[in-house]
């Protein structure tokens, strides 16, 4: 491909992939120094880094397509090629280790010509329907073509012509737009340990698909959407519910109610050009009202409700017996993962529905009764950072009398699209507060959006439920941050409780395998499907900003630091819901509305 692109030098480097968002090599300060020349400038770097690492640190931008930070480089797309003096051809910066005395040119005429040729070849069989594409103006291939000044169609190949796979409730695959970079394949295998998809066939006939190239709906796909976030083009996107939501908003016979997940308010801003980590909670609430939502509720409220139920369940299991360790049930990708790969641990998973489904259930029961609305007239929309929530909402257990708890699920990206579609100017709105009775929330519910948040919130309340006292220090710092696995021992009045938090299912697998092999010092485990938690969910804005995830997390913990109401059990709205309607945690009504069960899915391929 292109002229003289070298592929022979990629195998020397072996990386241990880590899920930490720390830059590779960032911590190894004592590694030997390597001296090299980049674009005629002398540069010092550390042994073990790739050319790409050094270029990034030096502020030289080379384009990449197949590269995913912290995953094993494949050097497949050849976009990042650079000229290395003495090498036979151009070398891929992402997969080439640095050495003393290297002389590198990153933007010579030869390199730029090669990159442009690669883009032109990628476009030669691409459908070229950018105007109609879900990723129009937000597509890496489009951006690269623009940056490299591709103006002529130099190669005209046979256009890709594949069936769109719309079988999944969460993720739509359009293989015609696929450039075979393999990012989705690697994320699915290396980060999520699902390996639902792989390259099928070879050469010009290669496609990415499931086992036997069948629909995603019958595959091991856990619907997490990390592949969608990884995809540089429009080959993967969420199953859109915008049309259904718009129809409901325009229907005078419907009471359209929405809830937004804890992480949405700290990520939505990015879709409107604001810096990552800006909290737009009140503005978003105002925007939702302007678009015609009759009630705007906060899923953080039902996160508090989840803590009451799940915390009580944990206390029950610890004191009265039951499967230990208990595992969280908020993350629907993780639930399907357990059902497929660890069915023997299904009873360890908390029977609590996720916050989305809990709020959905009380909206169509308590709220409907209270407001004297027929549940059939309520159209319940949830705004989630997640594609798996679409699958969860469609699970048959998540309906009562044929009425689903949640009718439609929008991702953060879809919400932004809807806001633009309905002509709401986010910049011109004043913040507004949410509606009663599901508007109040503690910051314990809010930090559900970050990995470790559920654990911290649960510990705050479990401590209270067991001892009748508040934790002297509400901050459980050991479970915060982006580490893939975090563990702590918590002392609750003389009883030591072992807790673990994992995000990214490859990390969950590590813990699950330890449990299979007899590990018995853990009592409570939080698992989030996506690395870092919901703030990095499969429905979040496509971002190229490596700082984005960190800032999103900071924003959540800033709220937790600054606000007064920090424990779920002190949420007056929750107390009222129990008093007026539910009775007590784990009570009869709770079991009917807020708890669920799991199925064995070992028969999927």
């Amino acid at each position, binding site marked *: 491909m292109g002229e003289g692109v070298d592929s022979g030098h990629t195998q020397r480097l072996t990386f241990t992939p880590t899920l930490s968002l720390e830059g590779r090599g960032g911590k190894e300060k004592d590694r030997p120094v390597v001296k090299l020349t980049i674009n005629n400038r002398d540069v010092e770097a550390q042994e073990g880094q790739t050319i790409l690492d050094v270029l990034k640190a030096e502020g030289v931008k080379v384009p990449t397509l197949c590269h995913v930070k912290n995953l094993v480089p494949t050097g497949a797309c050849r976009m990042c090629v650079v000229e290395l003096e003495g090498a036979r051809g151009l070398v891929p910066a992402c997969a080439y280790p640095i050495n003393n005395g290297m002389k590198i040119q990153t933007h010579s005429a030869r390199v730029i010509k090669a990159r442009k040729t690669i883009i032109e070849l990628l476009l030669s069989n691409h459908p070229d329907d950018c105007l109609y594409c879900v990723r129009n103006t937000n597509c890496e291939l489009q951006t690269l073509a623009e940056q490299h000044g591709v103006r002529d169609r130099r190669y005209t190949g046979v256009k890709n012509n594949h069936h769109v796979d719309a079988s999944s409730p969460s993720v739509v695959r359009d293989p015609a737009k696929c450039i075979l970079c393999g990012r989705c394949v690697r994320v699915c*295998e290396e980060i999520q340990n*699902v*390996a*639902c*998809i*792989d*390259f*099928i*066939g*070879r050469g010009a006939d290669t496609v990415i698909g*499931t*086992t*036997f*190239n069948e629909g995603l709906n019958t*595959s*091991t796909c856990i619907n997490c959407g990390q592949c969608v976030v990884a995809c540089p083009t429009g080959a993967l996107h969420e199953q859109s519910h915008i049309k259904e939501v718009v129809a409901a908003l325009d229907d005078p016979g419907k009471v359209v109610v929405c809830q937004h997940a804890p992480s949405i308010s700290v990520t939505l801003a990015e879709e409107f050009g604001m810096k990552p980590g800006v909290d737009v909670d009140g503005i978003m609430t105002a925007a939702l009202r302007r678009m015609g939502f009759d009630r705007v509720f906060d899923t953080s409220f039902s996160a508090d409700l989840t803590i009451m139920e799940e915390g009580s369940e944990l206390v029950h299991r610890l004191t009265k017996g039951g499967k230990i360790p208990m595992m969280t049930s908020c993350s629907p990708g993780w639930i399907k993962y357990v059902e497929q790969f660890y069915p023997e641990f299904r009873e360890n998973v908390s029977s609590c529905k996720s916050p989305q489904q809990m709020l959905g259930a009380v909206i169509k029961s308590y709220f409907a009764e209270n407001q004297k609305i027929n549940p059939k007239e309520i159209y319940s929309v949830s705004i989630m950072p997640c594609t798996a929530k679409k699958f969860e909402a469609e699970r048959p257990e998540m309906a009562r009398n044929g009425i689903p708890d949640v009718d439609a699920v929008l991702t953060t990206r879809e919400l932004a699209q809807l806001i633009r579609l309905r002509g709401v100017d986010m910049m011109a709105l004043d913040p507004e507060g949410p509606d009663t009775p599901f508007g109040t929330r503690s910051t314990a519910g809010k930090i559900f959006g970050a990995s470790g948040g559920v654990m911290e919130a649960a510990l705050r309340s479990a401590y209270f439920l067991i001892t009748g006292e508040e934790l002297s220090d509400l901050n459980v710092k050991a479970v915060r941050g982006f580490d893939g696995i975090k563990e702590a021992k918590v002392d609750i009045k003389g009883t030591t409780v072992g807790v673990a938090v994992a995000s990214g299912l490859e990390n969950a697998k590590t813990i699950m395998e330890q449990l299979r092999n007899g590990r018995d010092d853990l009592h409570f485990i939080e698992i989030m499907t996506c690395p870092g938690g919901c703030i990095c969910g499969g429905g979040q804005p496509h971002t190229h900003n490596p700082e984005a995830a960190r800032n999103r997390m900071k924003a959540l913990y800033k709220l937790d630091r600054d606000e007064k109401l920090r424990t779920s059990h002190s949420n007056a709205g929750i107390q009222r819901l129990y008093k007026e309607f539910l009775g007590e945690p784990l009570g009869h009504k709770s079991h009917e509305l807020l708890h669920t069960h799991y199925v064995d899915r070992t028969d999927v*391929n």
Partner: protein
Amino acid sequence: MSSVDISNIVAKYSGAGRDALIPMLQDVQQQDGYLSRDSIIAISKHLNIPPSKVYGVATFYNQFRFNAPGKVHIQVCRGTACHVKGSSAVLDVIQRMLDIEAGETTKDGVFSLEVVACIGACGLAPLICCDGEFHAGVTTAKAERIIKQYRKKVEA
């Protein structure tokens, strides 16, 4: 789909690692004539490799088939010499007559069709091979006759 027993092959590779994948696939194909869904899943479980990966590897190689072979297995040569002599039209005719694509088996299980890169008898191009019998200088009309002959033979 007929279920296929590959327990003997699984037993032969007991304790094997992922490097046994291709030998196992070859053994199954040798025994059954193709890789059934069940056998792919069984291999996946035995070697602890996700089934998508097993399928991905198997589809990479031309030697593996995913449909049970028919009573008559037709190989159409699409090598360079055969191509120049018109094998593309021959393949089209056969696909249309049998209503299958290359790699598939007719619903009645009589014919299966495979495209091969070169049979090694370029002087006789274009060439097709039915159940090991070679037919040289095949035109579209001749291909039709050949298929009809084999159908008669199978039905007899």
